[in-house]
């Protein structure tokens, strides 16, 4: 290094040299900030309506199913055995679904598109950024967006009179936890994908998960074996966790749900980091 930096650079280039003398890891340059800043800047100049619209989907479901179907269904049994309105029953589930959808979208389609079509990451990775900086930055942005949507949705629940306990505010961090679980895995899975047809399979896993994870009706309608299967799926834990928080009823199962996500995040981060070179460096 001394060959390069020592002789030619007198004081006036010290800024660029200082940037080169930072401590670097093999796939990490401690500069996630730059990736996040880029993401925010790009969002600012993009069509913010598209961004805002992402928040409407769960709200529309809530109004349609909660109000329309709720008029027919009446009340159902909540997590603590108490009777709650159908809207209050599905609202936390819709929030969990929205956290899943947003996180998966951002960590799979978005990443795949920026990698293979927009060629955005190619540019980034010709700088001193490492793949880990890029991955962490993208996940952070996804979670930030998820937190905003969750806040908005929780507010809508409040306006609709579906919130009865201060515990409900915890739905926001819990949504971020759920989103993190899905995002950390999603990016790792994307590293195995080569074509858009393969990417479609992600949807075909998510749609049934959305429909069958006790989102719109209790798990008890299924035979035992199917119940076990669904209980093994991540979304069910998210739905149950948020449902418990929304009414402030906590049981040992709460810890299981949180634990499920903590393990999912750990495994997902492990998978993604081990696949980062495959994902970003060809």
């Amino acid at each position, binding site marked *: 290094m001394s060959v390069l930096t020592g002789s030619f650079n007198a004081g006036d280039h010290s800024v660029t040299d200082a940037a080169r003398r930072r401590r670097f890891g093999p796939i990490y340059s401690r500069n996630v900030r730059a990736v996040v800043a880029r993401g925010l800047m790009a969002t600012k100049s993009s069509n913010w309506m*598209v961004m805002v619209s992402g928040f409407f989907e769960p709200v*529309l479901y809530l109004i349609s199913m909660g*109000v*329309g179907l709720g008029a027919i*269904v009446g009340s159902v049994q909540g997590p603590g055995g108490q009777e709650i309105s159908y809207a209050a029953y599905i609202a936390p589930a819709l929030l969990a679904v929205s956290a899943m959808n947003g996180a998966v979208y951002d960590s799979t389609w978005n990443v795949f598109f920026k990698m293979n079509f927009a060629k955005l990451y190619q540019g980034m990775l010709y700088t001193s950024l490492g793949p880990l900086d890029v991955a962490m930055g993208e996940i952070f942005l996804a979670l930030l967006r998820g937190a905003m949507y969750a806040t908005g949705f929780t507010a809508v629940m409040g306006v609709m009179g579906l919130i009865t306990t201060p515990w409900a505010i915890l739905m926001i961090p819990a949504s971020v936890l759920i989103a993190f679980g899905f995002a950390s895995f999603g990016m790792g899975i994307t590293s195995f994908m080569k074509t858009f047809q393969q*990417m479609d399979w992600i949807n*075909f896993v998510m*749609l049934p998960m959305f429909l069958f994870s006790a989102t*719109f009706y209790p798990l008890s309608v299924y035979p035992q074996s199917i119940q076990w299967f669904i209980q093994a799926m991540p979304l069910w834990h998210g739905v149950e966790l948020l449902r418990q928080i929304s009414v402030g009823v906590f049981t040992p199962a709460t810890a299981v749900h949180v634990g499920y996500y903590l393990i999912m995040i750990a495994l997902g981060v492990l998978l993604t980091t081990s696949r980062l070179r495959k994902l970003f460096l060809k």
Partner: protein
Amino acid sequence: MTRKAELTKKAELTKPIQAAGTTTAAPALRAHSPEVSAARARRWGAFFYAEQVLRVMKGYGWTIVMYGVGQPVAYLFAMGVGLATLVEANGAGEFGGVSYLTFIAPALLISSAVMTAANEFTFPVMDGFKWRRVYYGPHASPLTPEQIAGGQIIAVTVRFLLQSAIYFAVVALFGASPGAWGWVSILIATLAGLSFGLPLMAYAATIKEDRGQFAMVMRFIVMPLFLFSGTFFPLDTLPLSVRWIGWISPIWHGTELGRVVAYGYEEEPWLTIVHVFFLLGLAAAGWVLTKRQFAKRMAS
């Protein structure tokens, strides 16, 4: 569940060109004198182009089956079987004496066709005029803009018919279409798809710059229509403040018609006639606007 569909479609289109566009009328040109091929194109041009579009569609045939059939069938199971236990326990009388499964089966058929329309009449049009400009290849041949638009519509209509038929077969297998005229709902779904899709196609042809308009259409038009068109519950259960969405929704008109043919849903005869005319009128208006817009855009 919709925004991924959009991206897929977009991606399909941004993929390297697979013999799209440029080859359309070439075989005819080679085989006949220019006069003959011009005459043929005048007559069959739309079908030449439709064949082209269908060929491209075949490339993502698997995706079509999953979105066009897999998605409504998944909803049918989740709602018609799972949710039905809740709904029927409390409000069995609400659905005109039929099972909840029978009640939602036509709605999902129509919704699925409309969602397909929302994809097939947006991104490919943008692709034709802007992204890869695939419309301009055939346009250099004797095909007219109207024929290109017509060809695209014919191809998508074929897709409507096919996916609706497969879905209907599944429904019939579950005995959720008790009436003898149930199969007519395949045609109704196709009509509903066109009545939503053709005005949208005319709009898509006016777009010069992609600023996420189609994502907006999906979220602010298609999603509300899907959720507020009496799909999962009778429209009357909704308060008036949102019930009007159903009245202007091709999904609602199509769904009500579908229910009439599928299980003899009882409604005023004049209402049935309104449904038919609403759908036909919208489709016809959309076709006129599309033709005009295609001609204008290609001339400019």
